[in-house]
């Protein structure tokens, strides 16, 4: 197992995702002899996990069962331990395409936060790219580095514990793309520019507040960035449901006298007639705002 390469069987030391049910998942570090408690009972790693195929059904001690999945950045995003507010897959997908990430890309990111985006970036730039991620909070930086190691992507990433606004990314002229998710991105724009290849590249800043966007766009324009464009992208989930719609009873219709009474009675809907349709309903509440994504192109300098 690695976050950048699939394997078929669960091995000692892997991180597996236990799927308990709809939107209920947990990551598990697979260790010989270890046990994991779930609401369906205990999973014994040595017998229930190690050597099993990813995607198989595992029966827990109380007789309930779960599926064990191969980790992916997307599963990690919904199961990771939150140390900060994180980026979710809808924004991550948009960022990945608009930053033009692909295998071999060199990317700078700040802050690392809980590593949700970092894992997605690493997946996309492997096996030949590199991620330089900067986090000003020491424990968070250490924890992220530890996770990258556990997820076997540490060869693709350098974690730096410094303040990007003051000290930049620690590299110059190497990045194809830069991503900023910090409180004052406008203070890091010049560092972003310095970190990027002279041939140019793409930059993205994620900010929840429009005032931040305003200042960042100004800074980007001042630094000579082009094609500055701000978007917002939201996910709309459609829950598939069987819906029953009752039919109204208007009583017997005297105008349709042509048919015999018996036939008319037969045709009239019975008291509790209804029609069942398959449709979708929106969830009652959805995330209505995550942040604004500002993209720009750095021209050749």
């Amino acid at each position: 197992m690695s976050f950048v390469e699939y394997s078929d069987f669960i091995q000692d030391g892997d991180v597996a995702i236990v799927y308990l049910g709809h939107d209920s998942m947990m990551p598990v570090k697979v260790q010989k002899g270890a046990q994991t408690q779930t609401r369906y009972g205990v999973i014994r790693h040595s017998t229930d996990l190690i050597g099993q195929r990813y995607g198989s059904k595992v029966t827990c001690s109380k007789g309930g069962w779960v599926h064990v999945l191969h980790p992916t950045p997307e599963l990690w995003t919904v199961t990771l331990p939150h140390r900060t507010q994180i980026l979710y897959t809808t924004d991550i997908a948009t960022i990945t395409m608009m930053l033009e990430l692909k295998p071999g890309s060199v990317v700078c990111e700040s802050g690392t936060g809980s590593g949700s985006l970092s894992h997605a970036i690493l997946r996309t730039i492997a096996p030949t790219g590199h991620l330089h991620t900067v986090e000003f909070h020491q424990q968070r930086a250490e924890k992220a580095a530890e996770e990258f190691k556990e997820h076997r992507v540490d060869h693709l990433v350098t974690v730096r514990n410094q303040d990007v606004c003051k000290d930049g990314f620690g590299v110059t002229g190497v990045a194809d793309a830069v991503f900023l998710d910090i409180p004052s991105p406008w203070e890091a724009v010049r560092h972003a520019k310095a970190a990027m290849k002279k041939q140019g590249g793409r930059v993205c800043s994620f900010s929840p507040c429009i005032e931040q966007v305003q200042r960042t766009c100004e800074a980007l324009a001042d630094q000579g960035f082009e094609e500055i464009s701000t978007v917002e992208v939201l996910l709309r989930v459609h829950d598939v449901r069987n819906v029953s719609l009752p039919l109204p009873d208007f009583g017997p219709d005297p105008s349709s006298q042509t048919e015999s009474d018996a036939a008319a009675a037969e045709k009239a809907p019975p008291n509790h007639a209804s029609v069942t349709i398959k449709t979708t309903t929106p969830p009652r509440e959805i995330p209505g705002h995550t942040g604004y994504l500002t993209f720009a192109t750095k021209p050749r300098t």
Partner: protein
Amino acid sequence: MADNGDDDAQYRIKGGDYVVLKRGDIFKAVQIQPKKKVIFEKQWFFLDNAVDHLYSTTFEIVSGGVLQPKKLKDAESSTDTKEAGTDNRNIVDDGKSQKLTRDDIETLKEQGLKGQEIIQQLIDNSSTFKDKTEYAQDKYIKKKKKKYENTVTILKPSCRILAMMYHGREPGKICHLRYDTLAQMLTLANIHAGSKVLVFETCAGLVLGAVMERMGGYGSVIQMYPGGGPVRAGVESFGFPAHFHDMLHEFPICHVNALLAGTLDTTAKEPSADSKQSTVAEEKEKQNQPEAEQQGSPEEQNMETNSGADDLEKEQKEKRKEAKAQEKKVKLEEKRKKLAAAAALLEGRNADGLVIASRFHPCPVLMGLLKFLAPSRPFVVYSQYKEPLIECYTKLKEQGGTISLRLTDTWLRHYQVLPNRTHPLLLMSGGGGYVLSGTTVAMDRSKSAGSQRAEEPAPKRLKLTDTEG
């Protein structure tokens, strides 16, 4: 800094390159060909002069359709105006504020004035310009720039640019797949280097190209195609290096049933195989592509048997026929090899990802192709319409073997960000299509164990039975 020259080689435009032309938000994909007239935004020009310039260079189109690299920053400063009004109370739309007539402007153009100079003339001859607010002036200049500036920027193609281009220019060709929806699909399907991905698309090759870009030449992509042959003109526009095409395989969906049943015959025949066998292969070929060029040969044969007049001519014809047959045989053999290679990749039923985006009903496509995925692998199905995906969802729930099913679409809004004038753009896309995503899991033993056992197990599965047995 010393190796700059070398560094830039890959950033230079070369003859034969596939590039994207850009003006404002308008894109067009073209190939650089000598003396080829290109029409873009109602203007024609030649790309010959672009060769050896760097990508992302902006060119001015001068008389004779010649491209001339635009000097950096020769535009911005010239139209700085100091005077501005406070509001629009004194501005009346009487059509008299612009003193230049259409003809005047045409004359200016003929005199060879550049876009920038024409705009300055327009401003100088506008009686209301100085009364407009600063913001309105900006807007005016922007609008005129769009109309009179004849520049074009030449870009290196990328998934982002091509997805935006197709969505803007020819959404019908890509089933109205919006770029952010494509972005969701690539991420949800966990497309990455080194995996084995199945793609079924009728989006001109955009989706296939996007998948190939994300795989960077590592792993394998199998295009499952309907009809006579794979359609992927859009893949060319990506301008991939040659080795990217080594990872691309193709398999006609008309053989999927045979492959699943284990009756698909792709075994190698001796090159010196007798004509009987080759005609069998030919028959097969005919079935594959009924509308293809097969028509010609049988008629030709008939003609010859009937005539038989001139011996010499007959001999020549015979020779030509032989050569043609030989050529055909080679082609057929190549095709068979390709089919066998793709079949071999599929047979293990251990693909890592499945991406469907087509004008076909997604339900049978999904049900047919899902069988080739290994357990614990993601799949995504795009449809322009929601209802067929509801059907897919229902069917998958009944059948089992998948979890985390989710039917979604994305809402995308662009913003104008300007000092004191920030707001969402007045127009936004009404919808970008729907995506059904999910993850495969091992089927219940009761349901599928029997059928899986019956098939020849993949090498990996053998190992499993070994350890279990």
